């Protein structure tokens, strides 16, 4: 028993000895706090981005997240980061109520804060952050609409909305309508999440409105069944088709020419830019005065190769 104890104590000490090596580095220190649980792979892109930016700028960037995705834990991490006096904090506004206290405390302590990803520019301003870097839903929809108008001249469309209870989804469809320069009216369908339901609703709509000029889907959940619907109706590649987000099926459809573009919010920029901006702010006191839209970035036939190559890594 005593021998085992000694062995374990030695292991613990060895572990302890490994610790400090990880902590010390030259240059400024920033902390990025996300709301994603450990199991969320989407954030890998952002983790890689802060490593790239950290190496380039010769600064240390720590990534922190609540292990189980609990936002109350996230608020504690923001408080912890504030207490450790970093040169800047990068944080998502996952829930304004929960994070408003801790984030405005950091600002009041004089720590520069940049908000990214979730939340809006208005919320970011209210918290006293320097800027917000994300994809405004309405703008993304509008730019997609303008793109569709230029490329197809469509005068009518259908927006396949699979999460209509979320106000952000309606903003996407409204933006698309404004980009095309038409009324949204009843051109948005509440498709639900179930793939077979989405498919049958899209088919019903297209049968009722055979002259529909463009299709917008809001993610893989609505894009993939819509692809199946077009395939069944023999309309693949006949209707101009844009979607939000990427998946393997969407990438294949872009290569096949069935989908014309996918909207990517370019998470890489949400990790890379704040580090670069905060470093320059710490060193020379310069900071752009407006927020930055990291998206929409458009993935089309022309750049799909690069996107596929770095999928899950930098894209």
């Amino acid at each position, binding site marked *: *028993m*005593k021998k*085992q*104890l000694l062995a*374990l*104590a030695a*292991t*613990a000490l060895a*572990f*302890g000895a490994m*610790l*400090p090596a*990880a*902590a*010390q580095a030259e240059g400024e*220190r920033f902390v990025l706090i996300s709301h994603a649980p*450990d199991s969320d792979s989407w954030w890998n892109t952002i983790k890689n981005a802060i490593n790239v930016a950290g190496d380039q700028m010769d600064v*240390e960037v*720590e*990534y*922190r*997240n609540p*292990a*189980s*995705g*609990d*936002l*109350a834990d996230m*608020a*504690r*991490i923001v*408080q*912890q*980061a*504030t*207490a*450790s*006096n970093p040169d800047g904090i990068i944080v998502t506004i996952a*829930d*304004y*109520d*929960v994070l408003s*206290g801790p984030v*405005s*405390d950091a*600002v*009041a*302590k*004089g720590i520069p804060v940049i908000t990214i990803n979730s939340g809006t520019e208005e919320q970011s301003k209210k918290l*006293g952050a320097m800027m917000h870097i994300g994809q405004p839903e309405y703008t993304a929809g509008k730019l997609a609409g303008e793109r569709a108008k230029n490329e197809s001249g469509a005068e009518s469309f259908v927006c396949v909305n699979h999460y209509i*209870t979320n106000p952000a989804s309606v903003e996407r469809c409204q933006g698309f309508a404004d980009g095309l320069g038409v009324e949204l009216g009843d051109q948005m369908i509440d498709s639900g999440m179930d793939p077979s339901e989405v498919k049958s609703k899209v088919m019903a709509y297209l049968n009722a409105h055979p002259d529909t000029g463009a299709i917008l889907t809001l993610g893989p959940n609505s894009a993939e069944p819509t692809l199946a619907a077009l395939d069944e109706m023999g309309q693949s590649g006949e209707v101009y088709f844009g979607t939000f987000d990427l998946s393997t099926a969407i990438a294949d459809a872009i290569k096949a020419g069935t989908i014309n573009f996918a909207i990517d919010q370019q998470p890489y920029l949400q990790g890379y830019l704040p580090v670069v901006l905060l470093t320059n702010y710490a060193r020379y006191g310069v900071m752009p005065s407006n927020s930055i839209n990291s998206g929409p970035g458009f993935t089309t036939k022309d750049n799909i190769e690069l996107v596929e190559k770095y999928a899950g890594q930098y894209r």
Partner: protein
Amino acid sequence: MVAEERMRAVPRWRKALVRPELGSICGTILVFVLFMFIAGDSGMFSAEGFINWGTVSAQFAILAVGACLLMIAGEFDLSIGSMIGFSGIIIALLTVQLGVPAWLAILAAFALALAIGALNGYLVIRTGLPSFIVTLAFLFILRGLTIYIAITTTSKTIIGGVREAAEGDWLAALFGGTVLKGLFSWLAEHDMIGTFVAGPRAGQPVVEGIPMLMVWALALIIVGHFILVRTKFGNWIFAAGGDAQAARYVGVPVNRVKILMFMLTAFCATVFATCQVMEFGSAAADRGLLKEFEAIISVVIGGALLTGGYGSVIGAALGALIFGVVQQGLFFAGVESSLFRVFLGVILLLAVILNTYIRRSITGER
């Protein structure tokens, strides 16, 4: 052999030292020394740093007191985490959606939690199933109900606006307020702690006061410890977990003790939930995930036996402190946060082995 063991004179220093808390006392000292060494200048031991890991430790401690007494009584509660989410949503729904005064909503949540705790206990006693299974069922039942209630009433899983609804409420202040504000203002005036430099609160101390969460944790630890080691009921708890049948023969109301302990864990979970809702002003259906295991880990680090009949509230509280300091300390030390679980596992193993060794010294078992 055994008789000789008992007859042998044990030196007094050893008697004083060898107690269930010994392992966690050593662990606490070790952890503090380690972090003084690797994170001494990172702000971890500033006022804000202290409040930060102190709050996290207090959260663990509130749950650990309930889990500890229940575990000594020989039972488990895996529904603690779901109970946190459930109570929070109940409070938020009543105050924000239905306009019920905050004090009434809080009391309602406590009443409901105690009833569910009693139901847990009753089912364990009546069915004779292991409490591990019964409370595992409630882990899912409560979590599912919480999400269902939140979605059907507000179509959101996060309900905000509780802070505004509870403004000026006497009972809400007991959970979400802070104490000793004057002390911290005085400290700030004498430059012992930092002040805000920007925004509307410039000049105010960075730490407003000691959060009520810590006060609750301390109160629960003191009361729990007193009941366990100074009252007849405390002996009943040990007896119920040590050997329930033997305890029944000598007239200990084992069933009542166990049901009361299940009610206590539900009570502790609701204290935790109320403090959290009042602090952040919102409740969410996914709050409290995995907290039941964090409570159990704190208790085990504190030297309690999983099989019941042995343990200490002070030990569990120190276990919670170790847990909180390690969790936040690794952030302060700038360690890759994915390593946190590795450390937790190592600490857990070390603690259990050390505790086993200590327990054998006490009880003379082989």
